[in-house]
């Protein structure tokens, strides 16, 4: 009796197992699930290296110096009373806006020039122009440091050979700021160039031909065809670059360490000075987080502009 009942049951279980297996396989074969699984490693990395540290830094920024009690927004209130913090704010804005402006301008000019070259020549120049961008920034900045180095500056040697007076590239606040902006522009221009070049390639040539027939000169073509067609790429590139430039660390750390007199500190380097070098991790975290609302607001407006223009 028992054996008779077991046999149909066993068959039923086997059928259920087969159904389940095929259902799992079917799910795995379905595009959304496969896509999710393929994205999973990236999601783990984003959660582990971005989302978790972000919320942890918010938590840290709300602790007192000894990290023994929650002080909510006191660290931010305290920061706003510090002269040095406001100096860092001013320098960060000056650095970011000046560097992004020149990167965008030079990147655009470079893209236009390369775009006019014959295809074969274009490939070479495109590759050469990208070199600063693909080199590890800390390493290339070390090269720049040798150029500006106080005692044996290679640049000063050239200036003196040419009959000019040497400059205190890293010791004078004006020239120190100039130097860090210059290195950032040198590093970041190829990114703008390659983005703009991709944009230029996507503009139909017929538009220029028609404009030409209608008598439009190069400047009018630039103003009424090229710039409007590149508007979204320009906006997104500038947004991305603004975020990266605001958060820059390597250039200042290698070239000036924030000096002279804290005049070249950015949010990132000042945060390191407070958090790691001086052991005030909560205040360091607060400095790093000050950037967040600024960038979030600018990202919101720029992306809204892009969405509207697409619609």
């Amino acid at each position, binding site marked *: 009796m028992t054996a008779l009942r077991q046999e149909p049951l066993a068959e039923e279980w086997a059928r259920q197992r087969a159904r389940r297996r095929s259902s799992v396989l079917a799910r795995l074969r379905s595009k959304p699930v496969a896509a999710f699984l393929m994205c999973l490693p990236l999601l783990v990395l984003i959660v582990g290296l971005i989302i978790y540290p972000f919320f942890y830094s918010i938590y840290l920024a709300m602790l007192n110096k000894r990290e023994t009690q929650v002080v909510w927004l006191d660290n931010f209130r305290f920061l706003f009373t510090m*002269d040095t913090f406001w100096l860092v704010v001013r320098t960060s804005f000056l650095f970011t806006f000046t560097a992004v402006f020149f990167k965008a301008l030079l990147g655009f000019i470079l893209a236009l020039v390369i775009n006019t070259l014959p295809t074969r020549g274009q490939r070479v120049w495109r590759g050469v122009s990208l070199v600063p961008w693909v080199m590890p920034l800390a390493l290339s900045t070390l090269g720049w440091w040798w150029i500006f180095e106080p*005692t044996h500056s290679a640049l000063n040697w050239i200036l003196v050979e040419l009959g000019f007076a040497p400059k*205190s590239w890293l010791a004078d606040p004006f020239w120190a700021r100039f130097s860090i902006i210059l290195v950032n522009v040198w590093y970041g221009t190829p990114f703008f160039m390659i983005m703009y070049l991709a944009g230029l390639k996507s503009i139909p040539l017929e538009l220029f031909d028609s404009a030409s027939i209608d008598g439009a000169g190069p400047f009018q073509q630039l103003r009424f065809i090229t710039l409007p067609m590149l508007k979204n790429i320009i906006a997104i590139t500038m947004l991305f670059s603004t975020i990266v430039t605001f958060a820059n660390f390597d250039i200042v750390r290698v070239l*000036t*360490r924030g000096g*002279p007199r*804290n005049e070249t500190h950015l949010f990132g380097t000042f945060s390191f000075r407070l958090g790691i070098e001086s052991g005030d991790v909560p205040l360091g975290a607060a400095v790093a987080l000050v950037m967040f609302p600024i960038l979030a607001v600018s990202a919101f407006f720029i992306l809204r502009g892009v969405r509207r223009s697409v619609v």
Partner: protein
Amino acid sequence: MKKQALADRREFLKTVAGGVAAASVVGFPHVSRAQTKLVLGLWDHWVPGENAVLKEIIEAWGKANKVEITIDFITSIGEKLQATAAAESRAGTGHDIMAFVTWDGTKYKDKLEPMNDVADALIKKYGPYNENATYLNFQDGKWVTLPSPIGSHTYPLETRMDLWKKHAGIDVQDIFPADVKKRDKRKVDAWDWKMFLAGAKKVHAAGFPAGMSIAENTDSNDWLGPLFASYGSTFVTPKGDITIESNATLEALEYLKELTKYLPPDIYAWDDGSNNRWLISGKGSAVINPPSAWTVAKRDQPAVAAQVWHHDAPRGAKGRWRGSLPFTWGVWKFAKNKSAAKDLLLHLGQKEQQWKLITASQGYDMPQQNSFLDHPIWQEIEPPKGGQYNYPIRGDEKLIVCGYPAKQDLAAQIYTRYPIPHMVSRVTQKGENPKEAMKWAAKEIATYMRG
């Protein structure tokens, strides 16, 4: 081997306690045989060969005590050692023993095991630590960290004796000979900041300026701190009163305003290696630095090294002070083998080990207990013969770490956030009124006091 090691330790403890049984040394730890691993985060010494000697000593101890040793030599370049300590303090895991630079131990003192037992044992055997090391490590009645000889250094003047003799008429070798008994008190007393300025003017005029950094680096703190102290300027009292706005500070700033006219214009961008480069360039006639500048010169410019004489700082109205950058050792509270860690540090503190390490560092490492200063290396190392005799303090100088005598938590902030070089450069580079600069410094230091 194990029995021998145990016997050695018992012998040591007996000596320490004056014949009392080892167990009577209050709270002193013993290596637990059940715990057999010890992980060390040590400073990656720049002197070639020092790491190997230290590793050999530690591994021999590990073998004798059946403790498995793992050593990570961590560079301080790019603040990697500091970043490691910061990460471990937060994560609550990592090395058992950690090497700290100057104030780093103070930053994490709540997370470190008190070292009273080890320090007391070493003090009983070898005498007290110097006042500077005691100030740095002994806080609120306990040794929060243990003074470490490895990497600790002082900041004597390193003078090109040929250039100063020829162009300034000052013979530093004669004032500070390689035998403290041969010093002429009148000549030593005459060596003050005024005389240094007069000499600096002359060597500058001859095309060989002295060079001292006024920037965001420890070298700046380590000569400016002593200079202000020699004028009687204290930044903050032990009670927490900000006293930087004083006549003494004003006088020191006025002096620096004059002195910096004869220093290179780029000192405001110098880093800790700049004075080395300045000396070996052949253009520099004096720097304030440990013998690393001489060592680099010996390798790259032997002719320059042969003319470098290490000696005492100039005197001010309130004495003669020399800067220092001591290292410390700490054992994390979360360490898995605290007992073995302390036992190892006690072993490293013995004269036999210290002697080997000082030799391996070519005299760079400066012990924190005066009883070890009779090591012969500072008399022997050359060229020139006796050139480093005065690297350990021989005369009336007092060691100081910039920030003294403020309470250690605050002094750590003064040291690591560089308000002193900033105050000076506001006057000497920016041209700000010294009183305004002092006011700025007082306001800046006040922001370091938050709890």
